[in-house]
Structure formats: C-alpha cells, structure tokens
C-alpha cells in the first residue's frame, strides 16, 4: 500500500485563549494574529518537513488548498508543489487539490497542474476538491447554489484542456472561452491521475465510481468516524459492479508514533489538543451556506438521523454540528480514533486494520499537526518511515494501483542540482 505524508501547514502560534477570545479560525480570523515574520519561519519549516518526508521514503508528499484559514496556510498549494518538484526526485506530488470552481477561468488549473507535471517529470496527482463552505462560499464568495455545477463544468474544461490536441472553444453555462489551448501540456498521458476528496455525499461516490477516479475522505476525525463514509463509497462501487480495488480510495489519518503508547500520549498531546481545540474552532455560521449540501445528501442526513440518532460521530451531521461536537482532550481524541498513537508495532497494527477495514490503499498521514515542533515532526516522520512503513508494505499487495503517477524514466529526467548554500567566505 501507499503511505503518503500530508501537510496542512497550520499557523503554530495561535494564542492559548484563541477559542475563548475569537469567533472563528476561518473566514474572519483576525489579521493581528498573523505575524508574517513568524510565518516566514513556519513556511520554511513546513517545506523542510515535506522534503524530509520525501527523503525518508514516503511515497508521496501532499498539500492542499485553504483560504482565510488559521490552520491551513496554503491558499495556493501549487506554489509549494512547484518547489517540491525541484527539491524531491522520485516522490509523488499530491496536490489535494485545486478547488475547481474558484478559478476563473478554470484553464488556470489545467495550466498550473501541467506546469507542475512538467517540472516534476510526471509525478503529479491532481486533486479536485469542491472545497469547504468556508473556503468557497465565504472566503471566495462563490454562489453556493452554483458551486457544484461550476465544479463539474470546470472539471470538464480542465480535462479537455489537457487532452484535446487542437485549440477548442468551450461553451459552458458558466465558462465561455473561444480559444483554449494550454501550453505546457502534462507529461502524464492522457493526464495526471485525478483524485477527488469528498465528504460523504452519494453524488460524489457515484461520480468517482463512474469516472474511475480515486475517492478520498479527508476527515479529521479518524477511522472510527470515517468507516461509514468509506463503507458508503464501496457500497456504491458494488452497486455499479466495480472492482473493490483499494487503490481507488484514499483516507486521511493523524498519527503519533513513539517508543511506547504512553510516551506517544505524552509527546503528542499538546499538538493534538492545539489542533482539535484551536484549529477546529470554526464559527458554525460559516458552515451551512444554503445549496452547498446537495438535496440528496440532506435527505440522507435527515433520514439517518431519524433512523438512529446515534448514527456516528460525523455522518448526517452538518459541518457546524460536527465542529461543535469535536473532542478536544487527548484521552477522548485518542479514544475516538482521531489520532492513532502508540509504539511502531501498535501503530502499524492499527493502521493495518484501518487500511483493511476501510479498504483503502492510499493512507494520507498527518504526522505534523497543530503546533507540533519541527523536531517532534521529524522524530514522528523518521520513526514512522523506519519502523512502521516496512510493516505495512504487504497490505493490499495483490492489487495494482492504477491511479498512481506514471513519471518519465529516470534516465530522461533533468539533473536538478542539490541546494548548496553560499559559503560565508565568498
């Protein structure tokens, strides 16, 4: 199976009383909390961490897009990805991803992803999220009633821009462009693999199944809460008569590994509580722009609430309810499965269970979260790579990953000079 290293790039210095003193980490988080000079250090630490993860053998490094967000400092993940394309050699670069409806014209996404694919020699995974309500409808002002239609139309435009040989006109509902002809074109043929991070909507399951895209559930609430969603995806795949190839799925999981469970608990409590306490402090007023949730999903949610009030921690709840009911103390965080902790053996065993039960071939691991220091992040990453990763390599070994980048042959690729700081004596 594939083990991927994911960075959210959280601002690591939100004040201790952030929760009490501020309405929200997202949309209207106050600018005075942001110190650009501290962010300079954070960005550079984070990029070091991503490069380190590539160096120690993770299959991919992953970045994502958020706007006006105190736990996600990547309004443009493509900027980070392009740097990673130069500073890594064989690791896949997973941009998870570009919120298609926000780009006008969406041609921009086709172009930038093609650039990253060229620079990296064909190592890009192209993620296409709809985007959260906070990012899309509020921070970017997109009409929630048109968001999904715009997303699908932009998807069609981008795929055509990647694949059509001749200049073409696009006559969409929302996008009209007389001349589409992107330069550069992607290295991967016909185009980089498309992965779709989704919530638990039936429409997205069906779409991924029909389009043969990877469905990813990027939840912060771990495998216990994620079970129902992944089961839903596989049920839809079954219904459509598709293979249960685990590589058509991705799942995000927070992990803290140490010598022992107790040590892991002690080491990672602060960072986890910072994340679940301060970073997920989102004002519910930003959670439910009308039209964002499809009527099919609303119906499923209401019906599941009616069927069983205690359905699960997550499914059937609005984003707002979800944020409000999040556990914020380490013992509950661990008990609920948000963060998997333990010795390398214990973590490997739990992740094997996650990968098997959820039938997921791509595990996206958050080994940095909240205000975790660079040293601790490195420790977590190294220990995972050296002692957990080898124990998981055999999982799903009988399946082929049809959704992994297909890079250029190493012998054809550019020699990228190693970074050498100028000597002080010069």
């Amino acid at each position: 199976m594939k083990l991927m290293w994911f960075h959210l790039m959280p601002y690591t210095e939100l004040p201790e009383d952030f929760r009490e003193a501020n309405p929200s980490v997202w949309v209207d988080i106050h600018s005075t909390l942001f110190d650009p000079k501290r962010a300079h250090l954070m960005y550079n630490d984070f990029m070091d961490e991503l490069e380190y993860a590539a160096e120690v053998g993770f299959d991919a490094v992953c970045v994502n897009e958020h706007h006006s967000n105190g736990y996600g400092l990547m309004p443009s993940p493509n900027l980070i990805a392009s740097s990673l394309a130069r500073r890594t050699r064989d690791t896949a670069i997973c941009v998870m991803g570009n919120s298609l409806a926000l780009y006008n014209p969406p041609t921009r996404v086709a172009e930038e992803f093609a650039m990253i694919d060229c620079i990296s020699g064909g190592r890009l995974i192209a993620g296409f999220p709809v985007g959260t309500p906070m990012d899309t409808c509020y921070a970017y002002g997109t009409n929630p009633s048109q968001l999904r239609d715009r997303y699908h139309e932009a998807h069609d435009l981008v795929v055509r821009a990647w694949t059509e040989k001749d200049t073409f006109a696009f006559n969409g509902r929302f996008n009209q462009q007389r001349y589409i002809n992107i330069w550069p074109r992607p290295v991967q043929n016909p185009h980089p693999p498309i992965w779709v991070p989704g919530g638990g909507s039936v429409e997205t399951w069906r779409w991924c199944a029909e389009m043969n895209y990877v469905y990813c559930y990027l939840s912060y609430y771990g495998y216990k809460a994620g079970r129902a969603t992944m089961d839903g995806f596989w049920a839809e795949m079954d219904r459509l008569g598709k293979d249960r190839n685990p590589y058509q799925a991705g799942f995000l999981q927070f992990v803290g590994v140490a010598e022992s469970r107790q040590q892991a608990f002690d080491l990672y409590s602060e960072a986890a509580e910072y994340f679940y306490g301060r970073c997920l402090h989102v004002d519910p007023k930003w959670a439910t722009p009308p039209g964002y949730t499809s009527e099919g999903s609303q119906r499923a949610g209401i019906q599941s609430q009616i069927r069983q009030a205690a359905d699960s921690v997550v499914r059937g709840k609005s984003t707002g309810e979800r944020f409000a009911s999040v556990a914020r103390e380490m013992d509950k965080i661990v008990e609920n499965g948000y963060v998997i902790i333990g010795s390398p053996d214990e973590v490997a065993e739990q992740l094997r269970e996650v990968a098997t039960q959820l039938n997921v071939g791509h595990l996206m691991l958050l080994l940095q979260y909240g205000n975790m220091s660079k040293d601790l992040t490195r420790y977590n990453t190294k220990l995972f790579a050296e002692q957990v990763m080898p124990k998981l390599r055999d999982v799903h070994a009988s399946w082929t990953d049809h959704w992994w980048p297909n890079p250029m042959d190493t012998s054809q690729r550019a020699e990228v000079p190693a970074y050498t700081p100028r000597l002080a004596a010069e």
Partner: protein
Amino acid sequence: MTDPETMTIEVNGFSTRIWRKGTGPKLGFLAGFGGLPRWIPFLDELAQTRTVIVPSLPGFPGGDRGHTVLDSHLDWLVAVREILDQAGLAGADLAGSSVGASLVAEVAALWPASVGKLALIAPFGLFDVNNPPTDPWAQRGDAVPGLMCADPEIWKALKAPPVGENSVEWPIEQVRSNEAAARIFWPLGNTRLEKRLRLIKAPTLLLWGEHDKIMPRAYAETFAKGITGPTTTQIIANAGHLAELDQPTEVGREILAFLDER
C-alpha cells in the same frame, strides 16, 4: 379563514404554485426571504377588497427546483415576467416583500407598461458598503427567526412543519428557499438594481419594518430618490424585515389605502 384557490403553471419545465383569493381588482404578491410554505393572515387582509394572486418564485416553496436552471439575473427576470403573465397579472398592481419586492421593482423597471401601482416592503437589490445589509446566509440557525421578524415566534410558526407533513421533505424545502434567494442575491444582495430604479414610472409605496435587522432603513431613501414615479414611504411599527408577517393588518391596510388612492 377559507383556503385560497390553488393553480399550477409550468415555467421552464417546473411546476409553480399560484394562490388566488378574494374579489375585486387583481393584486399580485411576491413573497420575501424564505417564501411562503403556508398561507399567511396578511394575504387575507389584502383579499378583503382585492383578488390576491400569489405566484411562487422558482426554488421557493411551491416553486419546485425552478431556480436550478436560472444562471443569470436575466434568466431570473424573464422567469418572473413569465410567471406574472401566466398568473394573469400583466398590467396589475404588484406588491412584494424582501427578495420578492426586488423582483417586482425589476419587472416595473424593465416592463413599465405591464404594471399598475407598486408596494415594496424592504426590497433586496442594493448594497451600500458603508451601511451594508445583514448577511442572511452567514447565520447560526437560531439567529435567523429574530433577523426576519420582530417577533421570532412568527417566523418559527411559518416555518414549522404542519402536522402530518413529510418530515424529510419539509426542511429540505425550507433550505431550498434560502438557496434560491442566494442564487439571485449572493454574496452581497447587490443586483445593481439601483441603476434601473429611474426606469420605474409607477406610483410606489415603500414600506419598512421599524426593526428591520436585514435591510438598513436608509435604503428606503435610495429607492425613493431613484424611482421616477411618485413614492410614499411608511415605517411599520413593531415590525422586522418581513413586516407583513409581524404586522399583517397594518401592512395590509397601508397597501390597500395606497392602491385605493386616486
């Protein structure tokens, strides 16, 4: 209180409900934010001396999912014009509240020959950066009733599912109504109606709830100044944004008195 007569028309392939009640000259009414999931006392006030005709707007209760095919402001205006025509309201006096009032104003601006007098209750459509409307779509659920009505219980009662109503579809329909309003007015509520106000030649009554927490009352002045036809402005005491819900008798009386003026 007798039930209104209900008819159904088809607009862009979506069935659209038309309520009709009363006798006398026709008066059309386009509902405000949230639409009309049920008949309201205000309409009975109007029906005393008028044939009140209440078409649903696309996506609002009774308007099916008609909003989903309306992508531009032009699409909306053409759909509303078609609905009014099919409802038999061409040339009639028109009243509207909130989002509905905005569309009444648009129709009067674009097709001045096809409207009589206008009564507009706190219309959407304008945006003053120094005095912005409240964002109705960025609210915690429990805040909405108090923003729409001076008495939040009135909004809650309007939106509460009737006994025996399908409890799955009813809440979806109420969300859809908010979505339809968003589809026209997201994100600021600004359709640049201000540019077209000068085209309104009809005599116009402007009504504003004294405690409107959505639309600043100063906007009444912008409407009054912008509209070419004669305007009268009345503030409704003890009423919120949807003044016709808080003070049905008072608002009804003001409208009828205005329409009856020679």
